[in-house]
């Protein structure tokens, strides 16, 4: 069984190479990053040699790897057929041999190998002496085994949930903290380090509470063996092995249950309220109601709003954490925030997918199309404006320059108008099918349309940046400390300007969409959501 499942995993990898170009690109990208992670982890761990905090930092890195193994299989659930026990449910296989097979399959692939190679950096950075080296290799093997067993337990336990609609919804939200964490390490940590606020000694004592957790046990076993405490080292490894055995036993039990338990029928969500809101505003109200409801109930929409806030924070990072604290950077954050509101909601047809044809059947002319675009813009504006203004003010307060919060808010208000206007035009002129791929909670451009997606980002950024120029000029004209009355005047003017931009966008979009409705319907039908 182990051999068969390893062959299955290898066959799946081979098939990925033989399938579409995007799949090949994805495979090679994944392999490339696996090599990068292996080299980076090995070098990072090796460079800890002689450092006073080497064991603390090793514990941090081991914990980070365990965290990655815990989270990533949830995203990869639909990608790796060997992760879902339901795929093997029909075959006459005993649970124990299936467990061994699945474990071996987990060790197959670029990432497990990269994991082992990367963590072997401890043989240079932390271990010393023959016993230390032997224990280091053993500790790395046990650490990787722990990670894989933990990942298997989590995916098997969650398998029934992850196959359900509600489970996929919950998984979608994981992307927000992961994206925020990634941006924190990519943007904030380097700035904190450059400003002298973050250094190796910042991690001192980190492992005082981590040393008895599995990753800490592995790291400390190496240190103990290298400093002559062989018995303590072996005790730690024994505890780690026992943890793995317990996890394995729990996993096998969970696997046994998963093989004979009916699939989770999604527990239905019942909605509150008897009817669609905004009844008195006819078709405009109906469209606005539909988009408003989707912003609340569609996980991807909620994720997009959260990502917009994160992007604004990241773009403003140097104003808060950098050395110069230049407040004008906050305006950049507002431009990025508005542009991504537009990008995330451009291509409404592709994002709506096949249900768009029900709307298209009612969009019988230019007037109805204008109503359609206005309806969605109203729903998005109701969320975008408070969010962007609040984040702008919050970031300015964090940077200690509250007055720039009003300037950034004005840019955000005008920018939202520009972003919605251009997103309407892009929806009408450059609609493209979208797809949700297994393992990714967010919608992406369907294979062959990636350039359209990138074009959407650039078009939104360029449009918002260019149309924000008058507002930025007004800000510069006002100087650093304008009279108080200037702030509401600026905000009102920015709002009027933004409204004008949406108005133009809606007009042009309706003109462009009218003759193209059949083609837009085909785009919608081609979306695989």
């Amino acid at each position: 069984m182990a051999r068969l499942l390893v062959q299955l995993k290898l066959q799946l990898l081979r098939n990925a190479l033989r399938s579409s170009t995007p799949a090949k690109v994805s495979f090679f990208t994944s392999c490339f990053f696996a090599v990068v992670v292996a080299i980076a982890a090995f070098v990072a761990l090796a460079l800890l040699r002689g450092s006073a905090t080497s064991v603390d930092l090793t514990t941090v890195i081991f914990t980070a790897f365990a965290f990655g193994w815990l989270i990533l299989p949830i995203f990869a659930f639909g990608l790796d057929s060997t992760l879902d026990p339901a795929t093997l449910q029909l075959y006459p296989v005993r649970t124990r041999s299936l467990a061994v097979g699945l474990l071996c399959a987990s060790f197959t692939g670029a990432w497990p190998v990269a994991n082992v190679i990367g963590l072997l950096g401890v043989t240079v950075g932390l271990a010393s002496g023959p016993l230390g080296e032997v224990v280091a290799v053993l500790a790395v093997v046990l650490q990787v085994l722990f990670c894989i067993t933990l990942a298997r337990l989590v995916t098997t336990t969650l398998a029934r949930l992850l196959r359900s609609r509600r489970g996929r919804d919950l998984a979608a939200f994981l992307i927000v903290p992961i994206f925020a964490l990634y941006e924190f390490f990519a943007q904030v940590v380097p700035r904190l380090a450059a400003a002298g606020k973050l250094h190796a000694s910042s991690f001192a004592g980190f492992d005082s509470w981590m040393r008895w957790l599995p990753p800490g046990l592995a790291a400390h076993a190496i240190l103990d063996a290298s400093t002559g405490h062989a018995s303590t080292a072996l005790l730690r490894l024994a505890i780690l092995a026992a943890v793995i055995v317990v996890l394995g036993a729990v996993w096998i039990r969970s696997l046994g249950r998963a093989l004979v338990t009916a699939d989770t029928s999604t527990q239905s969500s019942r909605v509150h309220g008897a009817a669609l809101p905004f009844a008195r505003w006819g078709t405009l109200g109906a469209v606005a109601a539909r988009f408003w409801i989707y912003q609340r109930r569609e996980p991807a929409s909620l994720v997009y709003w959260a990502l917009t806030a994160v992007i604004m924070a990241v773009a403003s990072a140097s104003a808060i954490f950098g050395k110069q604290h230049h407040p004008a950077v906050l305006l950049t954050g507002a431009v990025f925030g508005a542009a991504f509101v537009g990008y995330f909601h451009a291509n409404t047809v592709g994002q709506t997918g096949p249900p768009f044809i029900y709307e298209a059947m009612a969009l019988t002319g230019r007037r109805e199309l204008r109503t359609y675009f206005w309806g969605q813009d109203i729903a998005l504006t109701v969320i975008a404006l408070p969010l962007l203004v609040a984040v702008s003010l919050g970031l300015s307060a964090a940077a200690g320059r509250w007055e720039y919060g009003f300037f950034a808010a004005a840019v955000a208000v005008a920018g939202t108008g520009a972003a919605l206007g251009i997103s309407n035009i892009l929806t009408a002129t450059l609609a493209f099918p979208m797809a949700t791929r297994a393992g990714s909670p967010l919608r992406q451009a369907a294979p062959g349309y990636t350039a359209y997606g990138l074009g959407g980002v650039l078009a939104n950024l360029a449009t918002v940046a260019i149309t924000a120029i008058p507002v930025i000029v007004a800000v510069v004209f006002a100087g650093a400390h304008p009279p108080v009355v200037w702030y509401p005047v600026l905000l009102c003017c920015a709002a009027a300007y933004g409204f004008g931009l949406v108005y133009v966008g809606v007009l042009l979009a309706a003109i462009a969409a009218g003759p193209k409705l059949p083609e837009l319907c085909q785009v919608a039908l081609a979306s695989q959501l």
Partner: protein
Amino acid sequence: MGVPGTGLTGWHDRARVGGSAIRVRGLRKSFGGKAAVDGIDLDIAAGSLAGLVGPNGAGKTTSLSMMTGLLRPDGGSIQVGGLDVWEDPPAVKAIIGVVPAEVRLFDRLSGAEVLEYSGRLRGLSAAEARTRSTQLLDVLDLTADAKRLVADYSTGMRKKAALGCALIHNPSVLFLDEPLEGVDPISADVIRRLLTRFVGSGSTVLFSSHVMELVEQVCDHVTIIDRGRIVASGTTDQVRDGKTLQQAFIDLVGPRATDEEVLSWLGSSSS
């Protein structure tokens, strides 16, 4: 919108001028050089319940998509209720209802919300849309699930909700692509009775199906399409020609021969 010089104003009147609720001439569509629909002519009389049958890939869905204004044809003309689909799409859309083969509704709306949304998009007042939505949900046996998200509906429930969306504005012509696929027998019976009543009031239904028994039972007009061409069209009795519709279909389309001898091992219990 009347017909000049005739004094006729309603769509039924216009249909009578042309004699057909649906009139298709020389309809063509190719994908990548391969003809999916290869010059079909079709006439469906007003008040008919017409079936469009054919093997997989025969061109049924492509034809229905072009007739409903969802797919631009390469050539030919289509009239629905006397109006040219591709010369005056808004007017045609106003009088038709469509249920596509792969039903994809707004799955983050509840069943009640999705029907009400369809009604309001079609210009009904909110109160009227709500009333009709409630009535349709009741007839389609979806009242108990009216407040559940469509995302949690089964295939059959989605089909029924989609039918409700297509009927809520009381269309004159209804296009249904595989309307009973995945629908349980009780719900299928409900839909059958609903369609029969709908047609009885003078409206027209054109639907595609693989289920010959169903077509034979409920349709007064049958069209058989194969490889993008119509191979038979007329009243159900004319097309059957004294046989069952299933047999007539196989005779006209031709059985797909396969060499079953290679499966000689199948049925033995030795391995």
